[in-house]
């Protein structure tokens, strides 16, 4: 079957979601439940001297107060914290008396009601030994540079080319700490069901959660089932085992009762992952005609003392344009904090912010239109490896986006465009890319002669529309009625579950569903003895007088061997990309921002935004546009609003709630116009899909910062850009 554009379709689960029928992990109704609440450490580093739980135990309803003594048998394994077990083994709080970061749990109160658990937790008194000195921020004394440079990427003689170039910029950009703040808080519910320990947790990787927890609490992996029915904002914060996961699981086994913990938002700022502070030194050079001559890019990223969340800032910027010379290196700075982690476009957002702003500075210095500069340096092959790209429509994205935002009215000199009310108008452009990765998947597809269809496969529905993507392929190949479709994902009881992250969800499940559907179709053709058929497949099945037809299929990404399926079953990371045997694969995007700045107050508002995305074949226009709009909204937040503010004297995030950690509200967002290239990338997979969720945000913040410059003439090289920067 040839690939055709997908028609407009609502999400398959839109109705359930609107009605609140889609149950998230913490929504499950559980009998005989114990509610848990954590007591956070009030110091940033040190050692517990004593814990007095007597007052807590007097709170009516409190059943037990657990401390590190109850959890000393939890094993710290590579799975203990996230996917960041390199070079250390991670860290599991409450396995000993030492405190290594602010806010980590030091006691777990179990009670018959949530209210009693909260009151009990507030009544626990913890005494510490003399507090140890600590370092909260990478700029402070005591911050420790990891001896090894993590990544070093380059080709040609970048230093030499930079030194002799006609035009150059040499600038440093700073990115703040940011927190995901998903609406679905992080939670764990542990209960016993059908002889297994069942864990409900909103996670992006239920197989690793089940397998990892089994190892940590000494159970047979087959006896643990992890269920992540819906994830209400993953964006990388739910990639791995959370700080409370093993505590809750172990508490349930100790108490022989179901236990549930929903981590309060205020604590999440200190117990969950976040986007770390980073520093970006960018040097770019071009000849007088705007041909790029060299790029040099050096970064530093804050990290914890004990984990290895890798700084991968340098991987995408050299792939954006045809740099003849490039040198990049990424370093880690260790401080006393919990381990940071992936947050939407984890490194690509900060690195695109720094490098695409620097490119705007270069364009201004050259006197060249920044769209023209980008078009003049377009490339169809990766400058680092020399391999071609599987597909790249970035020039089309730029040209289409420029028309959408009416780019022709932009003036090179800042501050020349004015709104009727006197606001300064600026237009900015920036581009982004994100690797097109894929994961293996294991799929079981069952079609009944009455039209009912059930598919179980690897993947998690995180609001990105994974179920709708799966449905689209089954509708396309088998003519399935979405109302009769049962899609089972996100649960190790259904299929081994891949980490659903890195924008590879759609590029993994669409080919898996399509391959399963094509196999079932082929089986049907064989059974009916016809060449092929039109219309719904179940009618053909009915003709065979069989009640049901079932196929199973393993899909393995391009260039991977069948070992990948075994790794998937064991909960190991297995995604492939962006480098494949014959090419590199990326999704691409161009963003255009129109920003208005009020001269008297410095208030900056993003009044219009246009984004054009090349993500391969679009599986669902609505969810794709929604992804891009969400990425743009997040980018507005990153550009103008978001910052986790840590007082270095205390080592705590001061603005640890949604009132003070500012994300955009409706009034901050005006018009966001999204268009899609919708060209299948069939070199990559049979569905022609690349990926949209992460690239959506890449470069969008830079477009806003560049528009702020075009409005005001001010280059603000830190985020967020706030009133005091523009006043």
């Amino acid at each position: 079957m040839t690939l055709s554009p997908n028609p407009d379709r609502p999400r398959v689960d839109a109705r359930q979601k609107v009605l609140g029928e889609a149950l998230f992990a913490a929504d499950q109704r559980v009998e005989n439940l114990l509610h848990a609440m954590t007591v956070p450490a009030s110091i940033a580093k040190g050692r517990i001297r004593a814990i007095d739980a007597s007052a807590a135990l007097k709170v009516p309803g409190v059943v037990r107060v657990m401390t590190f003594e109850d959890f000393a048998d939890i094993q710290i394994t590579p799975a203990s914290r996230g996917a960041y077990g390199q070079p250390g083994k991670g860290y599991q709080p409450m396995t000993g008396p030492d405190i290594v970061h602010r806010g980590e749990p030091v006691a777990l109160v179990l009670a018959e009601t949530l209210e009693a658990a909260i009151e009990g937790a507030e009544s626990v008194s913890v005494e510490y030994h003399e507090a140890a000195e600590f370092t909260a921020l990478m700029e402070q004394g005591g911050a420790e540079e990891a001896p090894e440079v993590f990544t070093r990427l380059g080709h040609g003689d970048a230093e030499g080319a930079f030194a002799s170039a006609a035009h150059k910029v040499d600038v440093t950009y700073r990115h703040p700490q940011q927190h995901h703040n998903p609406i679905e808080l992080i939670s764990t519910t542990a209960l016993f069901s059908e002889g297994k320990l069942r864990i409900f947790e909103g996670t992006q990787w239920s197989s690793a959660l089940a397998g990892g927890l089994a190892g940590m609490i000494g159970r047979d992996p087959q006896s643990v089932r992890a269920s992540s029915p819906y994830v209400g904002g993953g964006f990388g914060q739910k990639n791995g085992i959370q700080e409370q996961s093993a505590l809750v699981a172990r508490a349930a086994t100790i108490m022989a009762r179901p236990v549930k913990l929903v981590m309060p938002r205020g604590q999440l700022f200190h117990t969950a992952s976040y986007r770390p502070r980073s520093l970006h030194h960018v040097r770019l050079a071009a000849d007088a005609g705007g041909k790029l001559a060299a790029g040099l890019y050096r970064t530093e990223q804050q990290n914890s003392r004990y984990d290895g969340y890798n700084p991968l800032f340098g991987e995408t910027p050299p792939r954006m344009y045809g740099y003849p010379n490039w040198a990049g290196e990424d370093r880690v700075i260790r401080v006393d904090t919990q381990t940071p982690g992936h947050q939407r476009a984890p490194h690509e957002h900060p690195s695109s912010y720094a490098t695409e702003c620097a490119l705007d500075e270069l364009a201004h210095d050259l006197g060249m239109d920044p769209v023209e500069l980008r078009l003049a340096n377009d490339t169809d092959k990766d400058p680092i490896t020399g391999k071609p790209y599987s597909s790249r429509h970035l020039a089309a994205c730029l040209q289409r986006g420029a028309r959408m935002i009416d780019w022709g009215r932009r003036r090179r000199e800042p501050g020349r465009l004015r709104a009727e009310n006197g606001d300064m108008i600026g237009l900015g452009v920036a581009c982004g890319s994100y690797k097109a990765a894929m994961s293996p998947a294991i799929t079981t597809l069952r079609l009944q002669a009455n039209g009912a269809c059930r598919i179980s496969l690897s993947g998690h529905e995180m609001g990105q529309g994974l179920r709708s993507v799966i449905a689209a392929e089954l509708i396309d190949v088998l003519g399935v009625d979405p109302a009769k479709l049962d899609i089972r994902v996100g649960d190790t009881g259904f299929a081994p579950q891949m980490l659903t992250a890195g924008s590879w969800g759609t590029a993994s499940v669409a080919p898996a569903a399509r391959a399963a559907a094509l196999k079932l179709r082929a089986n049907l053709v064989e059974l009916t003895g016809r060449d092929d058929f039109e219309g719904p497949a179940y009618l053909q099945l009915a003709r065979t007088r069989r009640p049901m037809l079932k196929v199973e299929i393993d899909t393995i990404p391009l260039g991977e061997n069948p070992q990948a399926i075994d790794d998937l079953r064991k909960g190991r990371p297995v995604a492939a990309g962006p480098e494949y045997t014959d090419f590199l694969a990326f999704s691409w995007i161009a963003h255009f921002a129109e920003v208005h700045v009020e001269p008297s107050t410095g208030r900056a508002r993003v009044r219009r935004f246009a984004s054009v995305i090349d993500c391969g074949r679009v599986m669902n226009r609505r969810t794709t546009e929604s992804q891009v709009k969400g990425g743009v909204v997040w980018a507005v937040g990153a550009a103008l609003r978001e910052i986790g503010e840590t007082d270095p004297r205390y080592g705590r995030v001061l603005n640890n709630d949604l009132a003070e950690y500012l994300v955009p509200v409706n009034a901050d967002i005006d018009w966001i116009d999204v268009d899609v290239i919708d060209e299948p990338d069939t070199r990559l997979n049979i569905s022609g899909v690349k990926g949209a969720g992460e690239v959506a945000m890449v470069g969008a913040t830079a477009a806003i910062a560049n528009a702020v410059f075009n409005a005001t003439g001010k280059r603000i090289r830190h985020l967020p850009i706030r009133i005091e920067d523009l006043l």
Partner: protein
Amino acid sequence: MRAFSYSRPRSPEAAVAAFTDAGEGARYIAGGTTLFDLMKLNVEQPAHLVDVSQLDGSDLIETSGDKLRFGAGARMADIADDETINREYPLLAESLWRAASQQLRNMASVGGNLLQRTRCPYFRNGAGGVYPCNKREPGAGCAAIEGLDRGQAILGTSGACTAVSPGDWPVALTALDADIVVLGPQGNRTIPIAEFYLLPQDTPDREFSLAPGELIIEIRVPKTAAGRASTYHKVRDRESYAFALASAAVALRIEGGQVQKAHIALGGIATKPWRSEAAEAVLRGKAPTRENALAAGRAAIADARAGRHNGFKIDLATNTIADAITIAAERSAS
């Protein structure tokens, strides 16, 4: 959050009696939008709550007499939507609908709003002994003064406290010389709003001139023709659902192109709703030109003292006042 007892009387007198009977640790509660929040943060730990949200007649909104009268239990949303208030006193309506969110305004009472406590993060976030705060724990010290003070006050501060008074509505009422009618164990009294809020000085834990057990029952605002030419102008870190970085309530009476009477009060930059007679004096008898408006703004913050990260509030407040004067003057013309 701790267990507490609760009662819901129907009359102000019964409420005061219930409060007095409950003794130490009693609190009045109306919409709960501040108190519940602080209870969850363990900053407030009341033993008894007297719910005054359903007192008979407390939702009064009366605009026909010689004063505007608002029952303490009237909802922010209801006054924000009142047609007469929007037409005759836009600064009052704007101070309400530019505050919080629609959901919060539906719950919050205008009496309770007067008692909203500061958003200083060291105050709100310090339960559990992390951040010292003189307001929470007198004598403990102030973490904000040498800390992340971007949001702190530049007017009315002391060596003990720089916490900003967070309200919008109290700023508008301050501009219009409102009176606060309270009922206490000793009976009724009326407190001019200028005397209602206390400067932190050495006792930042004392924020209001209310005696124990006193209950706000009504807010009265003298009517003024300046109400029509008025605005509450609020500048914040996002376009909605945020507290003011700087705000200005301005009402003008302009005759023959000259300001005869100006009412100017400031929010977001001071430790209490800040009336600026100095700014009013600068405008008196002058045309509301940009130059004069900026001069008034500068006069208002002449005594400002900035900390480490909040120096921008000096220029921001100056310009915010000037912008508010311009908006108010345009309304006079129309």
